[in-house]
């Protein structure tokens, strides 16, 4: 997102999409975030991927477990506020050692103008950590796809729970014309 609130096409979503498809991810579920728009559009355009909009992020954690039982790899996309909605459902992934890959776009970090985003912006990494999800943070655009590839590969091949948090310095700040 640019300062004027317009979407500017960037490169990292294409690279992330390519990482996910190379790992044969075929279910992508999400509660949308402005910063995820381009990636969601790429997944929507791919007939080999089921894209599944969720009413609440916790559905994505259960969906991912069901997909894995059925032999399919899944990715769950959400904004940092969504991390607060998944905490109990993570006990499913953790107790049964289901692979889980989560991609989180951060709000509430430096430059945020909406105070309501700050609590989960601050809490998301810690909440994921204490819930047994390994956290990797992408602070620069050119780190995103590499970290996604590493995290998703570890999740699916080692049966781990992995999240990549994309910093607001990559996504940009929603300006509300302030």
């Amino acid at each position, binding site marked *: 997102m640019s300062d004027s609130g317009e979407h500017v096409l960037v490169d990292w979503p294409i690279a992330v999409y390519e990482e996910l498809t190379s790992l044969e991810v075929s*279910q992508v579920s999400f509660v949308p975030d402005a910063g995820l728009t381009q990636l969601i559009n790429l997944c929507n355009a791919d007939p080999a991927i*089921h894209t*599944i*909009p*969720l*009413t*609440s992020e*916790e*559905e*994505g*954690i*259960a*969906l*991912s*477990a*069901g*997909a*894995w*039982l*059925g*032999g*399919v790899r*899944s990715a769950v996309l959400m904004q940092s506020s969504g991390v607060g909605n998944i905490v*109990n*459902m993570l*006990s*499913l992934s953790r*107790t*049964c*050692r*289901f692979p889980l890959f989560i991609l989180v776009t951060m709000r509430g970090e430096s430059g945020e103008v909406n105070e309501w985003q700050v609590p989960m912006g601050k809490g998301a990494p810690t909440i994921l950590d204490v819930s047994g999800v390994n956290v990797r943070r992408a602070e620069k655009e050119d780190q995103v796809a590499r970290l996604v590839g590493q995290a998703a590969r570890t999740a699916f091949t080692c049966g781990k729970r992995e999240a990549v948090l994309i910093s607001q310095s990559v996504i940009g700040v929603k300006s509300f014309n302030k």
Partner: protein
Amino acid sequence: MEPVLNRRDVVAELLSNRGEAAAIVGLGACVWDAAASGDHPLNFGLWGAMGGAVPMGLGLALAQPRRRIYVITGDGEMLMGLGSLATVIVKRPHNLAIAVIDNEKYGETGMQRTHTAYGVDLSSVALGMGFSVARQVNHSEELRASLKTWQESSGPVFLNIKVKADPLPLVLPPRNGVYLRDRFVKALKSND
């Protein structure tokens, strides 16, 4: 109207003549009901993750489009995940059938009344969401008449089955999540 159906009989009926169907069973008494009808490697019983049965069934149904996928869960568990019924409708999996075993109580926590005891009608909710079939089942004749729909109709199918709230003996299936997971995957592969 007082419910007349016995939940153990209902779940045993739902799981009879199942062919290659796989079942996600929601937290609480439904897991004991499924165990009472006979432990099965393609029953995945949840001992937690309240609200997760339907979305887990959705992920499985999309991953296994040629296999019938059942979700059997209680009214309390379903109420916690009502939004997931809307998510099911986005994908409309033809092979997904959901049954709520509705005793109008939170059975594992002291039989407190759930929202269905106050008039919330889950089959109307499912109808409004857009399910292909959404009906309430009150009597054994209605249950028998719904079994073919449950097993074969193009979904998503939703049955809300009113049952008595009698206390029943616990019948516990395995609860080690990794064991449940591994035996499910193995059984799925063996008859893929």
